[in-house]
């Protein structure tokens, strides 16, 4: 099979992995040296496809032959898809060619499980080793980690790659059993533990060889099973705390060709995915706890964002005086982001904050207005009931088409 045909199949097979970040790598440069590639911590999105997602890395599978039969996966062994396999040299060639063209900032390599977990992991490592050692490639490398692989292989991958990821896919034991019978929650966590230990071993050793400097991430599938957002967010929180994960990715389940009956054949729940990302960002960037964002079982509201939802549920905190409140609290005002908080704090050292300043800062005043006090403004509708406020601030929802087999 020709390289171009393989590329078509193996990129198609890899697209369901949401992660395409190339950020967080240490500073590396090839200026005046043999080899190719640089990283500086900032990711670059080199293109966007019409699904609105960024193309930052060459994201392919080494092979989409797979021994596993995960129901949600287009590459499961019982799936009737065309199959292909790259040689490690072919992946290297594609990576270097696309990199030279400035189409990508690196490689994200994953694979179906062939022969054994160890063998598959060895093959992934081989590609990374060829790139790093034979071709002096200093660009970004993200390797998928095969959960049951030998810890020594995972450690080797950690020294070669900027990022490793082990996918949780389904956060509950019951769902894994039903939809991914060959996978086990405890080996997934074990692999995360191996990576986390590798990171901690070099954490305070500036001279030690780097170990996954851009951290580890994972992905969960949203909407392939009945798991609710509360479970997803709690799971994410425990991963951030327990394994120092950099990112949890949420991937709305897209229907797959030749779909088994065990998974839905509905359009991917994109808005739900979006709300989960917002909530996740609030946990990572703003210090919200999962329990604050979603107290009871169920899903996040779709008609308002989770920050607004929290503010509406906690009216006693507001209105906040922008000239007095702590920065951490300012960041909890709907419509005012972290950057604006910084700018407000700088500005209020010079003079009192006025309502117009928020317009200049391009804050979303529609949302912020009921929750703030400035030197010349106090919300008239502060007494307004949260229910009414919500009616006013909710985003218009596209009508939901009824399922054929609801």
């Amino acid at each position, binding site marked *: 099979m020709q*390289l*171009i045909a393989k*590329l*078509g*199949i193996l*990129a*198609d097979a890899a*697209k*369901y992995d949401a992660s395409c970040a190339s950020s967080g790598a240490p500073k590396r440069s*090839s*200026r*005046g040296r*043999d080899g*190719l590639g*640089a990283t*500086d911590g900032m990711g670059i999105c080199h*293109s*966007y*496809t*019409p*699904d*609105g*997602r*960024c*193309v930052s890395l060459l*994201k*392919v599978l080494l092979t989409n*032959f797979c*021994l596993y039969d995960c129901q949600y996966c287009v590459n499961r*062994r*019982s*799936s*009737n*898809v*065309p*199959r292909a396999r790259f040689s490690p040299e072919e992946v290297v060639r*594609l990576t270097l*060619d*696309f*990199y030279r*063209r*400035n*189409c990508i900032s690196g490689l994200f390599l994953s694979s179906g499980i062939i022969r054994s977990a160890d063998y598959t992991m060895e093959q992934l490592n081989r590609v990374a080793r060829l790139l790093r050692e034979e071709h*002096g490639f200093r*660009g970004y490398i993200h390797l998928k980690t095969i959960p049951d692989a030998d810890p020594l292989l995972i450690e080797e991958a950690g020294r070669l790659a900027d990022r490793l990821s082990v996918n949780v896919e389904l956060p509950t034991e019951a769902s894994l059993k039903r939809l991914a019978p060959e996978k086990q929650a405890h080996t997934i966590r074990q692999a995360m533990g191996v990576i986390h230990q590798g990171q901690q071993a070099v954490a305070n050793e500036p001279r030690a060889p780097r170990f996954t400097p851009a951290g580890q991430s994972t992905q969960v599938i949203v909407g392939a099973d009945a798991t609710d957002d509360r479970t997803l967010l709690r799971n994410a929180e425990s991963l951030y705390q327990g394994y120092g994960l950099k990112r949890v990715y949420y991937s*709305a389940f*897209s*229907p*797959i*060709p*030749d779909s088994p009956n065990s998974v839905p*054949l509905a359009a991917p729940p*994109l808005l739900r995915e979006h709300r989960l990302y917002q909530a996740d960002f609030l946990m990572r960037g703003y210090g919200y706890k999962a329990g604050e964002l979603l107290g009871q079982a169920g899903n996040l509201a779709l008609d308002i964002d989770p920050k607004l939802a929290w503010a509406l549920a906690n009216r006693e905190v507001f209105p906040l005086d922008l000239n007095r409140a702590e920065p951490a609290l300012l960041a909890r005002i709907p419509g005012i982001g972290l950057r604006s908080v910084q*700018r*407000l704090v*700088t*500005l209020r050292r*010079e003079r009192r904050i006025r309502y117009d300043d928020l317009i*200049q*800062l391009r804050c979303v005043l529609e949302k912020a207005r009921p929750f703030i006090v400035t030197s010349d403004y106090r919300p008239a509708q502060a007494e307004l009931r949260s229910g009414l406020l919500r009616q006013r601030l909710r985003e218009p929802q596209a009508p939901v088409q009824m399922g054929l087999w609801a």
Partner: protein
Amino acid sequence: MIALDCDDLFDTWRKQARVLLGHGIDPADVTWSQGPMDDLLAIATPLPEGPGPFRPRVPAALLAQLEQAARYRGAQRWNLLYEVLWRVAHGDRTAMLAGDRLGSELQRRIKQVSREAHHLHAFVRFVPLPEAVAERLQLDLVAYHEPAHDILESASSHFADRLGRQRWLIATPTDGIRFDGSNLDYRRQCPGEWIDWARHAEDPGAELWRTYYRSTFNPARLNPDALRLHMPGRFWRHLPEGMLIPQLESLARQGKQRDGQALEVGLQRGKRVGR
């Protein structure tokens, strides 16, 4: 009214601004010409001589911000900078902060400029030259790019970090830059032959990239607005994948794509894996 021309060079503007400030000349009494858009009402009064009596002190950070904002192509390009400088020099630091009306415009320009530098890093597409041509021109990679602001000179060393000893060139409708493996050669006027090489390089190898682009797209998640937000249409014509965008969108819209699979992959024969 003093009418000045700084030839769109920051250093020239800076020297002029220092003299103006030293003589206490109000921003309302000075204007910089911008190419053909001369201010017809401005009667040319010459720049005063000598540094002038006023010795302003401005924060070092301001100079860096003004230099960055100076790369912005747009109305009041140089006038705006002088107004900011004037106010800060006279003790009003809010003129450089985003909360102020003027400062907000300054910060917006800085943001646009750094966004445009980022666009350069993201959307430049190099075409590898065939070996014989590369040998003749002493050049491995060429690219043509149309930035909206004057960022080519300041933002291009990024590619020297990425491409090691590769020799490359980026041509634009105005300026150009070339790297010979160790040194950068920036030209305010892009030489005509650079433009020729960059615009007419044949690229049979681009089909691999287009194949990747088609396949990595998930038609079940069609969201063309997000694409346009992050990758404005003005860049498409110099991207090898640009011509695919409308095509892939309309295919997905026609509803042929009920799932995530790429069309051409779905047309191939499948294979179940035995155990």
